[in-house]
């Protein structure tokens, strides 16, 4: 049986956060912070089995509905420019099935005392267009949660 062909897309999401680029970058870099804001909703859990935020580092995480963390994500950090840019790849699997690979670029630009974040997800989906819609919805919800995280977490002195 031939594998279905791959579907490619580029998703661009933009947000303005009332926080400095340093503060936003910290929330992106810290796996404990990411475990809080990185899921699309309160009913979805995100657990890091391995976290290594550096160029060449690998994170392994699992997410899914509470009690059923069926998705496994391998994040490889390729480029990190502190407070400015993170470029990574994300491989999403469900069990033995590889569902998609994304090249994710996050850019941070100061706008006055705020920060513009632009997330570009260049995705190759093996499972069809559903993965693309799912990736877009997931990232969009997580970026909304990041705003809440930035408002509520105390800034380190």
């Amino acid at each position, binding site marked *: 049986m031939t*594998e279905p062909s*791959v579907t490619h897309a*580029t998703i661009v999401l933009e947000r303005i956060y009332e926080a400095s680029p340093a503060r936003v970058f910290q929330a992106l870099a810290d796996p404990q912070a990411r475990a809080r804001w990185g899921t699309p909703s309160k009913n979805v859990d995100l657990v890091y089995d391995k976290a290594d935020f550096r160029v060449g580092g690998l994170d392994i995480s699992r997410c899914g509905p509470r009690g059923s963390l069926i998705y496994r994500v391998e994040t*490889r950090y390729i480029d990190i420019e502190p*407070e*400015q*840019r993170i470029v990574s790849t994300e491989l999403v699997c469900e069990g033995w099935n590889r569902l998609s*690979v994304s090249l994710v670029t996050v850019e941070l630009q100061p706008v006055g005392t705020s920060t513009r974040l632009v997330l570009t997800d*260049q995705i190759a989906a093996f499972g069809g267009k559903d993965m693309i819609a799912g990736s877009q919805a997931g990232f969009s919800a997580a970026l909304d949660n990041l705003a809440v995280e930035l408002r509520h977490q105390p800034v380190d002195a």
Partner: protein
Amino acid sequence: MIERSVVHSTFIIERLYPAAPSKVFFALSNADAKRRWFTDPDNPMPGRFQMDFRIGGKEVNAGGPKDGPIHVYTATYQDIVPDQRIVYSYDMLFGETRISVSLATIELFADGKGTRLVLTEQGAFLDGHDTSSSREHGTGVLLDLLGAFLNEKT
């Protein structure tokens, strides 16, 4: 702080080769075979070449002009379906500077006795060091080198 910029783009290149998908896949996945055709036409002297063809494995290809910065291509294999598909991410370093990060999908389709290869590259070009059109041209040249290699063998 340095002003940063990223240009994102996608290009698709197709080639028709007179060899079966399994032979094309072999040329793409076997280190000895790949070493023979995956060269930089401007700098044919091979530098470092290592290849670990498995999911999560890395490939490194380094070289460059005698008196210039070393160019290093480092790839990670993200998905492999034998004889059908290879998905890999790679970055390019010129000396100490990372100039791009890309996600490449190669799909192989049987076409009569031959193979249609479709390469889709989604790239992030960093800080203006290189352009998508230049990369597309260079990638096309590499696929022509693969074609020449396969023509020799057929």
